[in-house]
């Protein structure tokens, strides 16, 4: 047995991030991400309604407010902290690795009023192996943006953030995130605007790479994204169309995709699916045009208050001409014993074709937030 201990200074580091739980949209009542989060994309800091839901609906109890309600910040200031640690094991080719590593330490700050706000997410990025950079060099702000928002939820924002695109799973290794430019720390800079209506929402974003290295990592491309989602069947179903166009010095990628969400009230099962096709052309005639495919389909169910089980499949085909793909199947068990606390057991089997040489990852995450 080999023990790989990923340590960073003070046992803190960021390799993951806390995004929204898209399973809760439609199934728990909210029809959109911004019902529970300050960000129109979901994820990060919870608003008052989201904090109430965390204690009264999703977990088995507790006070979901900041610091468990021990202190209430002034009305112009909202604060939050997200921490995650993970313990896991990987099997592949009869070899086993034991993993233990800190995943996340992020601080959220939102300052301003109901209409205009400044939003900041700052933490420590990972520095898993030597030579490790100094602590100050590891500070990173994944999000910082200025936003104007109307009561309807429609907004304009500028700064660093992920454009609204696809299923915004909390798992940044989901293939539709990992391979489409939404991996951890890949937030670009940009401007975005969105319209929120009763039965639909639309978002348009323009993005560029980070202007200076000091501001962190991020994708290299510049481009635009568009996302349109329409809800129907009494807000138990949603269908979305999306596209993204990105230019970099090495390639141009145009993607088109669909997202489907369906809450089945009878069975109390939430279904989520996404399919994207990417057309990638290379600069300087480096290679032939290729088409790629990324897909996700999952189902989840709250089997008891505070206990959610789920399963999902992932597919990634980097070049449709050669029919070589990565596929993965996963099961998830998430337990929310009290507001602020989550235990998440993810077990994923990944492989190619007939899974002749599969790899298995089982990861137990402890997630605590304030």
């Amino acid at each position, binding site marked *: 047995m080999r023990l790989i201990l990923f340590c960073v200074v003070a046992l803190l580091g960021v390799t993951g991030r806390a995004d929204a739980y898209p399973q809760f949209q439609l199934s728990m009542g909210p029809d959109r991400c911004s019902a529970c989060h300050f960000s129109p994309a979901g994820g990060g800091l919870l608003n008052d309604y989201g904090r109430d839901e965390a204690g009264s609906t999703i977990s088995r109890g507790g006070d979901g407010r900041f610091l468990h309600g021990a202190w209430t910040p002034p009305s112009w200031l909202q604060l939050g902290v997200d921490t995650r640690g993970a313990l896991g094991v990987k099997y592949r080719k009869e070899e086993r690795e034991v993993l233990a590593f800190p995943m996340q330490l992020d601080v959220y700050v939102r300052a301003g009023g109901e209409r205009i706000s400044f939003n900041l997410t700052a933490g420590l990025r990972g520095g898993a192996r030597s030579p490790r950079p100094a602590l100050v060099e590891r500070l990173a702000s994944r999000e910082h943006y200025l936003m104007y928002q109307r009561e309807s939820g429609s907004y304009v924002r500028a700064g660093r953030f992920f454009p609204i695109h696809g299923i915004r799973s909390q798992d940044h290794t989901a293939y539709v995130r990992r391979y489409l430019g939404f991996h951890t720390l890949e937030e670009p800079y940009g401007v975005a605007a969105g319209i929120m209506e009763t039965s639909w929402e639309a978002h348009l974003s323009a993005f560029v790479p980070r202007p200076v290295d000091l501001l962190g990592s991020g994708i290299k491309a510049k481009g635009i994204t568009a996302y349109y989602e329409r809800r129907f069947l009494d807000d138990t179903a949603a269908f979305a169309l999306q596209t993204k166009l990105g230019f970099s010095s090495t390639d141009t990628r145009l993607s088109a995709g669909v997202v489907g969400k369906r809450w089945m009230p009878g069975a109390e099962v939430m279904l989520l699916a996404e399919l994207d096709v990417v057309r990638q052309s290379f600069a300087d005639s480096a*290679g032939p045009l290729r*088409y790629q495919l990324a897909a996700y389909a999952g189902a989840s169910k709250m089997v008891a208050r505070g206990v959610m089980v789920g399963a999902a499949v992932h597919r990634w*085909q980097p070049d449709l001409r050669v029919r070589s793909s990565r596929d993965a199947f996963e099961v998830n068990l998430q337990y929310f014993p009290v507001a602020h606390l989550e235990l998440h057991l993810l077990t994923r089997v990944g492989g190619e074709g007939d899974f002749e040489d599969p790899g298995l990852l089982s990861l137990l995450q402890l997630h605590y937030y304030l």
Partner: protein
Amino acid sequence: MMHTSRFVLVLALVAGCADSADRPARWSYIHAAIIEPSCTTAGCHSALTAIAGVNLSERQGAYTILTGRLCEEPPSSIEAPRNYVTPFSAETSKLYHQLVGENTDVMPPDSPLPDAEIELVARWIDEGARCD
């Protein structure tokens, strides 16, 4: 609607032309099509994080790190100083062993490359690992 139909038709056609041999085993393609999207994601071998001191984000810099050579230098069969790539010999190249996960941790650790991508990297190494 017509655009959509054409898009689907093109997809069907290219999907039917399953042939990996016409993909160039050139570094400019391999870096843009495989290394950059798979290895330089922001938490790994990007310019910012450069895990294990390996920054693969720039094409020429990545070539030097992997082969120990500048792009202008001709390849040789001598083992590279960084020992990631041994030109003309994928079997003895650490990079290849990492991609297939033989006797070492597989890379990328969370989602190994599809076989066809690994085969293309191996072909590039076996053909001399040129910076072309």
